[in-house]
C-alpha cells in the first residue's frame, strides 16, 4: 500500500446554485478499501459520478494512475479500468443474466487484456456469475434479468463491473435493498477481491458492515469532506455524529 492509484484534488460541482460537492480532496492507495459515508443528499453519488465521468466537474482534477481523467467520457474512464455499479440497478432487463455480462466482455478493454480475440464469452460470463454467488448448476444464470430478485440484480451489477477486470472498483450503495443474508454472502466476495489487490471505493449506508471491511473512511456532509480516517475513529468523530444525528446548536 504505497502507490497512489487515484488522487482527487479540490473537486467541486454545482447543480444550478446548489453546491453538490465542495472542494473535496482525497487520495486512494493501491489495494486500499475506502469507504464513503454521509447522510442522504450529502453528495456521495455525485462524487461517484464525477469520478466516473457521468458528471463533469466545475473545477478540480481527478488523477488516475498518473493520468488526468477529469471530464473524460464515461466509456474512456471505464476503458482505463475504473468500473462502477449504479445505486439504482438497471440491468439489461430483456437479456438473460449471463448475457448481461457479454456487453462489457465485448469492450475493447477486455479484448486488449486477453490479447486478441476473446474466446468463449458465454463461459467467461458464467464463471463471473459464479464468483458473485449465482448458483452455477441452477437455472439462475440463464434466467431473464427482469425475473431475478433484487439481491441477484445487485450482484449481477457487481459481476458486470468485474467483467471489465478493473483496477479500481467503485460500488455505489451495493448493499442497499439487500437482505441481511445477501449482505452476509456478498461481504466476503468484496473482501476477497480486495485481498487480491483490487482497489475499492465503497459508498455505503450500512455502516456496520462497511466499518468491518474498510481500511479508511471519508465522511461527507453537504458536499464537503468532514472527516477522513480509520473506521473506528468515525463513531467518535463529533462532525460525523453531528451530520448524522443533527448538532445541538443547529436549531
Amino acid at each position: 500500500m504505497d502507490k497512489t492509484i487515484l488522487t482527487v484534488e479540490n473537486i467541486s460541482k454545482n447543480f444550478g446554485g446548489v453546491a453538490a460537492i465542495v472542494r473535496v480532496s482525497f487520495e486512494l492507495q493501491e489495494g486500499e478499501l475506502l469507504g464513503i459515508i454521509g447522510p442522504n443528499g450529502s453528495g456521495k453519488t455525485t462524487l461517484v459520478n464525477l469520478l466516473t465521468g457521468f458528471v463533469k466537474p466545475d473545477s478540480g482534477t481527478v488523477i488516475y494512475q498518473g493520468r488526468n481523467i477529469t471530464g473524460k467520457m464515461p466509456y474512456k474512464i471505464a476503458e482505463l479500468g475504473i468500473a462502477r455499479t449504479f445505486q439504482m440497478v438497471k440491468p439489461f432487463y430483456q437479456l438473460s443474466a449471463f448475457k448481461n455480462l457479454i456487453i462489457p466482455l465485448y469492450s475493447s478493454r477486455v479484448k486488449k487484456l486477453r490479447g486478441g480475440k476473446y474466446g468463449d464469452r458465454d463461459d467467461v460470463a458464467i464463471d463471473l456469475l459464479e464468483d458473485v454467488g449465482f448458483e452455477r448448476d441452477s437455472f439462475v444464470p440463464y434466467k431473464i434479468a427482469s425475473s431475478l430478485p433484487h439481491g441477484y440484480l445487485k450482484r449481477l451489477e457487481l459481476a458486470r463491473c468485474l467483467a471489465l477486470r478493473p483496477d479500481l472498483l467503485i460500488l455505489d450503495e451495493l448493499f442497499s435493498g439487500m437482505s441481511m443474508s445477501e449482505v452476509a454472502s456478498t461481504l466476503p466476495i468484496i473482501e476477497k477481491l480486495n485481498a487480491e489487490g483490487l482497489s475499492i471505493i465503497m459508498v455505503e449506508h450500512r455502516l456496520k458492515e462497511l466499518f468491518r471491511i474498510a481500511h479508511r473512511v471519508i465522511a461527507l456532509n453537504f458536499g464537503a469532506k468532514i472527516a477522513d480516517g480509520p473506521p473506528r475513529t468515525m463513531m467518535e468523530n463529533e462532525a460525523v455524529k453531528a451530520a448524522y444525528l443533527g448538532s445541538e446548536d443547529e436549531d
Partner: protein
Amino acid sequence: MKYRKERLDRGIKARCEDIFALSSYKEISYLLFPRVLPVAILLILPLLQGVIGLYWEKVLMITCMIALLALSWDLMASVGLISLGQALFFGTGAYITGYLNFAFKLPPILTIPLGTIGGALFSTLLLLPVLRLRGVYFAIVTLTMPLLLSRFIETTKILGGTEGMSALSPLPNIWVELYVPVFALLICLFGFRRLINEDYGLVLQGIRDNDRAVMSGAINIYWFKAQAVFIAGIAGAFAGAFMTHYYRFVGMPAFAMDYSILPLTAAVLGGVGTFAGPTIGAFILMPLSESLRAVGTLRVVFYSAILIICVVGLPEGIFHYLRRKYHQFERMVDVG
C-alpha cells in the same frame, strides 16, 4: 363456477428446444415450417405472373421495399432509436443513385450499390450529431430530416429541383424487378435476426435497455449507435436506390412522408423488435391498401379503420400473436 384461461406450451415446443429437435422429422418440421413456408411463398410468387397478374407482382415488389424500410426501422428501434423519418434513407439512396445515373450515365448495376452505401453513409453522417438524443427528441429530429432535405433541393434547385431527374436507365427485365427485392428482403430479414443475437447485437440491445450501464462497460455507445444507423441505412437506402431505377425517375417524392409512416405502421402492426413482425406487417398493409383502391375515396377511411381494429385488438403485434398461438394452446380451467 369460475373459469380462467390458461396458456400452456405445446409438448412439441419443449422437445424442440435443444439438440433433441433433430430427433425426428416431426420436430424438425415443427421448427422449419414457420421459417421455410414464408420463404418458399416469396420465392414462388414472382413465378406466378400468369395467375396473379402483373399488377399484383408490382405490388409484391413495392411491398418488399416497404418491408425493407420497416426492417430498417426495427433495427434502429432495437438500439433504442425511434425513427419517424425512414424517408431520409429512402430519399438519399434514391437521389445518389439517380444522380450517378443521370450525370455520369453509370449502369444500374453500379449505381444501386453506390447509392445504397452512399445513402446510408450520408444519412448516418447527418444523424451523427443527434445520436445522443433519446426517445421522442430523436424521433422529432428524424421527422424533420427528410423535410429539410426536400426543401433544400426545392429552394436551391440542385439535383433537378422540383422537376427531379427523369429518363433514367430502366432495370434489365421483369425477373430482376421481382427477384432482387425478394432476395434483398430475405437477406435483410435473416441477416438482421442473426446480427441482433450475436454478441454485437447484445451490445445494441443493451444500449436500448440502459445506455449508462453500457457506457460504464467501456463501450462507446455513440460509435455503436452510428454503426447501427448505418446498417439500418443500408436496408433503407437500397429500397430508394432500387425504386429509382424502377420508376426511372427520382424527385422530391423520394422524401415523401409515406416512406416514413408506412414502415412505422408496418412495424407496429406486425410486432416491434422481431424483424419478422414488421415484414408481416408490410405484407398485410400494402396489399390491403392496394385492394382498397376499388373503394375509391373512402379507401383511407377503411384502411385506417382496419388498422385501428388491428392495433387495438392485437396491441402486441400480429407476429407475437401468431407465435404464441403456434407454441401454446389455451384451455379454460375451473377456479371454483
